[in-house]
């Protein structure tokens, strides 16, 4: 058994590439729930823990965690020679863009302050309306056919959304047990407490949504996900164990409920039709920005300038999941369900150049603090890094250990994946 497990790294040629540019597409940090407790408490026997910050805001610990992450990236990018350590001159080569919400802008600001502590870094964000990069449908760049969206999701589930109830029975029963505070295996099933709503019993649907909300209305699945999604944030924010899911769930148990989150994101963002509509513009800007850096020539529809070395885009899990889905990227980080978009977790696209041949490659990874790095606010260094999952880019990555993808192939794969009518060429 041991003898056969030669790591895939063995006998590979030395890496002669140098990092030329990095694009970090990140989710915001740890936040408060998206709904006020008054809306959540109808789904739970006991009230959700009182919040110290407004609804849907980056928390104080979330800010600290983003600072730690920015510090780590500073160390890494200095080692890679992309940052020099002279912040005020480096600032000219760094571009930050955030979705225009408090939690995403604050995340970008905390990250930037640690990446370049001695410089004043501007975080670019849309002052009014929807940012076409992160919400192209809302911005009018990319039309969504909501009927087709419902069909595309329905046609992944046999047109029978109620079948989620059996397909995810163990997650839904764990969610119910946690929300109504009884041991998960209790028989007979305790009744819904008086005055409360059993989210898991609401009809599951897959009907057309509308602008500003989820593109497809998932009914009870979405309501249940909404009720359990605060648990991981409570854990990551470092709340006392008794306040994490009312003291009822270990990290493993929370991880099981988090599968409902990845399911909802998978349906809403990774369903191919929805993915193309919602993520083509972001993919287009990412790939054009990479090409712009490689050629050194200003390229329409790219971000910042040809000399920009670091591009940090901070948005929501919807954006991270959607961009990953468009390229068929999967990852697994210990402590999380597969493809989970962790707070502060990012898709990282490295543009690297071979010192020998001059060839450009794209190397992709998913980088995130582990659940316990978040909860313990563990300082990160090059020796104690966040979890890094190298990503194989289908249709492009070669079989080498870092899954390098030649730039020309990356552009070809991206062009094949995107819907050109859902992208603009605006900066």
């Amino acid at each position, binding site marked *: 058994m041991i003898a056969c497990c030669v790591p*895939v790294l063995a006998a590979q040629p030395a890496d002669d590439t140098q990092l030329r540019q990095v694009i970090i597409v990140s989710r915001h940090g740890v936040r408060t729930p998206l709904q006020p407790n008054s809306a959540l408490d109808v789904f739970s026997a006991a009230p959700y823990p009182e919040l110290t910050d407004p609804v849907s805001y980056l928390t104080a610990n979330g800010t600290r965690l983003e600072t730690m992450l920015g510090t780590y990236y500073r160390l890494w990018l200095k080692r890679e020679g992309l940052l020099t350590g002279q912040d005020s001159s480096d600032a000219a080569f760094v571009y930050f863009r955030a979705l225009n919400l408090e939690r995403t802008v604050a995340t970008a600001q905390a990250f930037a302050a640690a990446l370049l502590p001695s410089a004043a870094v501007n975080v670019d964000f849309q002052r009014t309306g929807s940012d076409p990069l992160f919400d192209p449908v809302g911005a009018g760049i990319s039309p969504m056919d909501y009927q087709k969206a419902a069909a595309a999701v329905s046609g992944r589930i046999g047109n029978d959304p109620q079948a989620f109830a059996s397909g995810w029975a163990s997650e839904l029963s764990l969610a119910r047990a946690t929300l109504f505070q009884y041991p998960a295996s209790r028989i007979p099933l305790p009744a819904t407490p008086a005055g409360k709503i059993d989210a898991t019993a609401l009809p599951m649907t897959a009907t057309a949504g509308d602008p500003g909300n989820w593109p497809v209305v998932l009914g009870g699945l979405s309501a249940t996900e909404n009720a359990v999604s605060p648990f991981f944030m409570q854990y990551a924010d470092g709340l006392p164990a008794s306040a994490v899911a009312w003291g009822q769930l270990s990290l493993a148990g929370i991880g099981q409920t988090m599968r409902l989150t990845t399911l909802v994101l998978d349906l809403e963002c990774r369903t191919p039709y929805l993915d193309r509509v919602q993520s083509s513009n972001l993919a287009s800007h990412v790939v054009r920005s990479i090409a712009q850096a490689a050629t050194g020539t200003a390229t329409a529809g790219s971000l910042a300038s040809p000399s920009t070395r670091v591009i940090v885009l901070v948005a929501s899990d919807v954006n991270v999941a959607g961009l990953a889905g468009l390229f068929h990227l999967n990852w697994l980080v210990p402590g999380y369900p597969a493809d989970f978009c962790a707070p502060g977790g990012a898709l990282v696209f490295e543009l690297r150049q071979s010192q020998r041949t001059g060839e450009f490659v794209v190397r992709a990874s998913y980088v995130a603090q582990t659940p316990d790095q978040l909860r313990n606010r563990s300082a990160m260094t090059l020796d104690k890094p966040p*979890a890094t999952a190298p990503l194989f880019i289908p249709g492009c990555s070669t079989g080498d250990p870092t899954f390098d993808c030649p730039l020309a192939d990356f552009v070809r794969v991206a062009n094949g994946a995107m819907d050109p009518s859902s992208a603009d060429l605006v900066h």
Partner: protein
Amino acid sequence: MKMLLVAACCVPFLAGQPADDTQLRQVIIFGRHAVRTPNAANAILNNFSALPYPNFAVPGLAVITPNGQKNETILGAYFRLWLTQERLLTGRDAADNASVYFRADGAPLIVDTAQAFAAGMLPSAAAAIHSTTSSDPLFHPVDAGVAQLDEPMAVAAVNGRLGGNPQALATAYAPEMALVRSVLFNYPPGTTPVPATPAGKIDLTAAPFTVTAGSSALPVNLGGLQNIAIALDPFIMEYTDGMAASDVGWGQLNAAAISQIDRLYDRVLDLEFRTPYLARVQNSNLASHIVRSMVQAATGSPVTGALGAPSDKAIVLTASNFNITGLAGLLGLEWLVPGYQADVAAPGGALVFELRQSQTTGEFIVRTVYITQTMDQLRNRTPLTLTSPPAVAPVFVPGCSTGNATFDCPLEAFVEVVTGAIDPRSIDLNQ
């Protein structure tokens, strides 16, 4: 308050669709073999479990069971009813037999499945099942030398979906891992402290998960995860074969628990066969033959690389769950059937591609469904009729299906999507 309105807004999106004016011209039924005995001998499996695995009604490894045969004939009889209603079959079996092409992977299990299905579909005819004892390029293109698998690439493609850390699957699937161990070692799930491994037994859940070069059966070797899948595989067969409840997972598993525990088995199939590189190498040839057969039927002219003849009305392909999973992966097809996990290729379950023609415009469309007996229909050997049908999951074909209720996909767009998905170096143009 908003949530309370959910029920009111659940108008199925089927409402207000135009009437279906299409007629079925050809159907391709691509099914998995029926309920079978385990792939590994009890002498091996018993190393992994506290109690011995039960014996099926027939001896031998990976052979169809008598109940599996009955279930497959029940399924064939359902297709007879449906295809007669759709006027693709006439009810005159001998004549119909001339326009049905059966092709089965060469293993006895699979040929026997095809024969049992044919016995239900065309009971009065002697259907010829095409099969080969060497590797069939349709179902085993790598072994047949039609497609080349680059092993380091296969390992990288799978590793690069797992962060290069396959062991992390053990924590991601912690509830299922704990359930597997408790069933195999026969203690209630949740027992603390976790009971020790029984003397003389092997704890499969403790073996490392790896991704290394595979074999002709599995393109990459997943180490401990693969062995867990082998140990789990008999449970669903015990259930669907109708064994006494006390013999299904030694009385510890109901249908819901089998479905949950099988997530580990399903994940092996996902990694081995839906990983895009692997799906392309292993399923391009099958996809190519399917789409060429449809074009052949639509045009009425022989097409190279198609199956059967232009006049064939039904093509029945019988193979394994990895073929169905792989083809679905290549085309991005997914389904969910009550009782099963998402995308499970159940015993006898089939991807069904209908070539239909509009009576008003003459336009050809492809309509895709996944059809399978539910776990309880199998267990109870429930007769199937048009009014009590198997589970039918309409399937949206990404990049092709329109937003209508049956997810119709214009033939031309279907050809384009399939052509874009297949690797032209991994196909042949033989029958």
